[in-house]
Structures are given as C-alpha cells and as structure tokens.
C-alpha cells in the first residue's frame, strides 16, 4: 500500500510542481500515526484516569464545591471531573487514541507479515473501542423491581425515566439463602451469683445461670418499634434488633427488652444483673429469582437467575442485582441490552492471541 508521502512524491514527479496540499496531508498523517503522539495521548489518558479515581464520581457540582471549596469545586465541575469518564473530553481522548492506533497500524502495514502479533494487538484494541462506542450509542440498562407474583415490562433508567422491554417479566418466586441464621449473643453479669460470661441465645431456649437463675429469649424483633398494640417490628430489616428476655431467679421472673443498638436502654434490674445484647446478622449465601418471560401473553421463556448467572432473551440480559432487606419477597433485577459486547469479546480474544504471538513463546529465555 502506498503511503501518503509516496503519493505526494509521485504527484510532484508527474506535475513538476510542489504538492503543498499533499505535503500538509503527509505531515498530518505522520503526526497522527507517530509513536510520539501515542505517548502524549497515553500520558494524558493516564493522568485523567488517575484523577478520576481520586475525585468521587457521579457527584453533582454542589458536592464538588462542598468537598474542594467553592473555587476549585467550580473549576472541577466545569471540567466535568465529577463525571469524568462520561465527559466529552475524556471520550474525545479515547477517540483520539483510537485514531492514532489506526493510523499507526496503517502506516506500518508492510511490517504486518513480519510482526503479525503487533498488528493483531492494535486491531484488537480498535475492536474493543468500537464495541465501547456501540455501547455508548445504543445500549440500554435499568432496574426492575418486582414482588413475587407481579410482572412488569418497564424498567427504571433514572429519575422519572423509564425504558421498555419487548416482553413482560413475571417474578414467580424469590428466595434468599443464608449461610446460617442470625445469631444473638448476650453478655450476662450477675455479681451476686458471680456470673460474667458471654452466651449465645436462641429464641425459646432456656440458659442456666448457675444453680439458681435462668435466662430465656422469648421474642426477637428485627426492627423494634412501639406500635398501638405494644412492641412490634416495622419490617424485616434488622435496623433496630431487639430481644425480649425473661430473667428468672428464686421463683420470680422479670421481663425486659434489650437493644443491640442501644445497650443502655433496658429495664432497670435494680443492680442485680446487667445484660448486653449483640446481634450478628445472617450472611447471605445467594439470592435467586425464578421468572417467566411472556410475549403477547405467551410464555417464551422460564428460568432462574442469581448473582453470576444471568438470564438472556431477545438481546436482553437480566441480572440478579439485589433485594429489599425489609421485604424478602421483593427482588431487584438489572436489565441490559448491549450490542457492543460481541465486538468487545472478539477484541479480547484477538488481543490475547496477538500478545501471545508477540511474546514468541518458543524463544522465551529470560
């Protein structure tokens, strides 16, 4: 393939006159395709990336002013530092790097046969950038919140913005598995009995305290609130864990509430005993949604999804995103459509192949 410089010289030889336009184009191409340009662009990109990690992203300008002061905050806000990776100049930098990459490869295309690995690497990076461009231009993503038995075909993109799926999603069942249940620990001090120990309590189980006393956990309320009918729980989210205990000694019984978040707030026991309550929440093992996808009231797919196991249909992918701790029958799904993913994955495969070729494994001798 003839370079721009060769084309210019040929035109000059044919016409006998200096080809000024060709000279300009030749210089522009030489600059665009130079390693020096790559180094400058890479340095700028590196600096921008580093700055973007130190400045909290997704923040409004007011938050930047509060954090960095009015003057610096305004400067950073104007520069788009609060949403740097989506700013026009950052994406422009990526685009410039892409042009540089393409120009570099074009200029050195004759060396492709001798060093195919290098060209594969450059082609791969262009594929990845192309995939990212497709994502930027045409992808869709949002959140879908469903209770068991409910269905929806729209998802939330942002405040007051919705997108629509070409099918309906019905949440048939939502299950949260735990590694083990929540644990209740009591630090019990009864000086007159010489007791000072930590015990694990279970609701309905009696704990002996020496020969003369016992403690029984009667009831657990995850989010304690005083309702019209007395102690109740607002919901299942353990925001204010409380344990009702019965303390029995010498034929008598005292009932008291202990609060994990408020250790001083329990009934006065006249100095006879002091009980501190520690609540250890259960660890979630996995949460999974069983869904049915419907199109025109006809079931088109049924399946289960959980974290690391999404469900795909018609170019859309549903991911298990989260759940509501206050309502364990409500599941939150993330829906995504990204036509750029195959390009990016192809780029990944070519990138690794190119680097492996370039390393020349057969001759690797450190």
């Amino acid at each position, binding site marked *: 393939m003839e370079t721009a410089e060769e084309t210019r010289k040929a035109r000059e030889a044919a016409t006998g006159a200096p080809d000024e336009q060709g000279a300009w184009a030749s210089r522009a191409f030489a600059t665009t395709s130079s390693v020096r340009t*790559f180094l400058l662009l890479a340095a700028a990109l590196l600096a921008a990336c*580093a700055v973007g*990690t130190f400045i909290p992203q997704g923040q409004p300008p007011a938050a930047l002013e509060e954090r960095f002061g009015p003057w610096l905050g305004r400067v950073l806000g104007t520069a788009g530092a609060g949403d740097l990776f989506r700013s026009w100049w950052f994406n422009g930098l990526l685009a410039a790097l892409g042009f540089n990459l393409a120009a570099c490869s074009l200029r050195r295309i004759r060396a492709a046969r001798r060093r195919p690995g290098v060209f594969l690497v450059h082609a791969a990076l262009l594929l990845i950038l192309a995939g990212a461009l497709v994502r930027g231009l045409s992808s869709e993503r949002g959140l879908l919140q469903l209770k068991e038995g409910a269905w929806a075909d729209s998802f939330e993109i942002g405040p007051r913005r919705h997108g629509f799926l070409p099918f309906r999603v019905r949440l048939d069942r939502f299950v949260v598995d735990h590694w083990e249940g929540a644990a209740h620990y009591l630090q019990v001090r009864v000086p007159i009995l010489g007791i000072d120990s930590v015990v694990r309590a279970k609701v309905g189980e009696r704990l002996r305290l020496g020969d003369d006393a016992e403690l029984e956990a009667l009831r657990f309320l995850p989010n304690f609130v005083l309702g019209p009918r007395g102690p109740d729980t607002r919901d299942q989210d353990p925001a204010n864990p409380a344990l009702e205990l019965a303390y029995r000694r010498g034929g008598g019984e005292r009932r008291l509430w202990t609060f994990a978040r408020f250790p001083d707030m329990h009934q006065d026991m006249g100095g006879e005993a002091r009980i501190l309550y520690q609540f250890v929440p259960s660890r979630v*093992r996995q949460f999974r949604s069983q869904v049915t996808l419907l199109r025109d009231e006809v079931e088109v797919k049924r399946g289960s999804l959980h974290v690391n196991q999404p469900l795909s249909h018609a170019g859309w992918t549903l991911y298990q995103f989260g759940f509501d701790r206050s309502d364990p029958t409500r599941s939150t799904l993330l829906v995504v459509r990204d036509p750029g993913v195959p390009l990016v994955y192809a780029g990944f495969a070519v990138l690794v192949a190119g680097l492996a070729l370039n390393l020349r494994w057969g001759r690797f001798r450190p």
Partner: protein
Amino acid sequence: MTPNLSFALLLVSLILYSGREATGRPSWGRAGLAALAAAWAALTAAIVVRWSQAGYAPLSNQYESLVFLAWSFLGLYLLFGRELPVRAPGLWATLATLVVLGLGSLLDKSVRPLVPALQSNWLLLHVSVCMIAYAAFFLSFLAAAWALAGRDWPSRALELSAEEFSYQTVSLGFLLLTLGIVFGSVWANEAWGTYWSWDPKETWSLITWLVYAVALHLRQAQGWRGRRFAAASAAGFACVVFTYFGVNYLLTGLHAYA
C-alpha cells in the same frame, strides 16, 4: 497448615544466603536455594489445605491473595529468577517473599463463606492470573532496582543479559495482566451487567497496563534500554503496588472485598 512453616523456612534461607555473602562459599548458596524450594513447597501445601477447608479457591480477600502472590513470586524465581545476574538474587528473593508474607500476617486470616458476587469460577481464573502477573512484574522490578541503584555490571554481557531479563519478565507480566483484565471484564459482565465500569481497581489496572505498554513501546520504538527502561519498568511496578494496595485502602469501589 498455615504459611508459618514457609515463613520459618524463608528465615532459614535468609540466614543461609547471608552466610553465602559473608563466606563466599557456594555450598551456603545451594543450601539457601534448597530452603527456598522447601518454603515454596510448604506454601503450596498451605494453599491446598486452605482450599480444601474453605471449599473454594483461596483468593477471596487480601490475605489469601498475598499468600498466593508470595507463592507465585517464589515459583517464578525458582523457574527463571536464578538466572538474574544481580548480586545475591536468592537473598533479595527471600527478603521480598518475607515482606509479602509478613504483610499477610497482619491481616484477618479467618475463613469466611463467600459472598454471592464471588461465587464463580472466574474468581480462580481472574485473581490467580493477576497475581502471577504481579509476581512477574515484581521479578522484573528486582532487576530494574539493581540497574537504577547504579550498580556496575561485571561485564557488558551480564548487563545485556539483565536488561533482556527485565524486558522478558515485563513482557510475560504484560501478557498475564492483559489476560487477568480480560477475565475480570468477562466476569464483571456476567455478574454486574457491564464489562467495564471505571471502578477504581479497574481504572488503576488499566493505568498499570498503559504504563507497561508505554514502557514496551519506548523500548521497541524509541530504543530505551538499560537504566531508561529500568525506570519505566519501576514506574509500572509503582502502579502495580498502588493498584494492589493503594486502591484497597485509599479508594472505594466494587472490588471492596479485595
């Protein structure tokens, strides 16, 4: 079995290699190498035992990844690093591994059930490849540090050999880091619905990748050799350290469990 046995064997190796430097006797060096190999075997056993106890690849938190990093570094050193023509390579490798294991000993070592996001085969692929890449960069850094310290090489041939060693280990680390980033991206797409979210850990991995890409371009296209390439390599390693440690403690993001 914990890495404590490996730590003890590394201390023995340190004593033996120090004796080699003090006495000049090769037998001390050979004994030190044997202790180093035994330390690597002990680390291997510790990792296998923890894997069987936990029921998953022990790569889910900083402690486990540090132990794996020590294992990778020691393994790469035993495979290639002995060729490194610097003064007392075994001593430096022992010290480096002791530092890594020592840092690990300060962290929480308890085995905890995996959170849902980490329950994937990608955990093994992504983290292990990244750690081996870091180990390769660490090895390259040893050569770079020697060059930057201004030490004179006994011969031009050895200087060239060290420079080539540094380049080859950077190239190996670069390939593995690329693979690690690719694995991580594919996993992120499976778990979070996006292959790239400019999370601080991801961004600093990209920065590290770019710095090494620049270093390789400077060597290939601009003829940067010797101390200049060593400086570029050291800059890359500084990024590796920040990506691995700095991000965890100074920045927050989706990789919080790392």
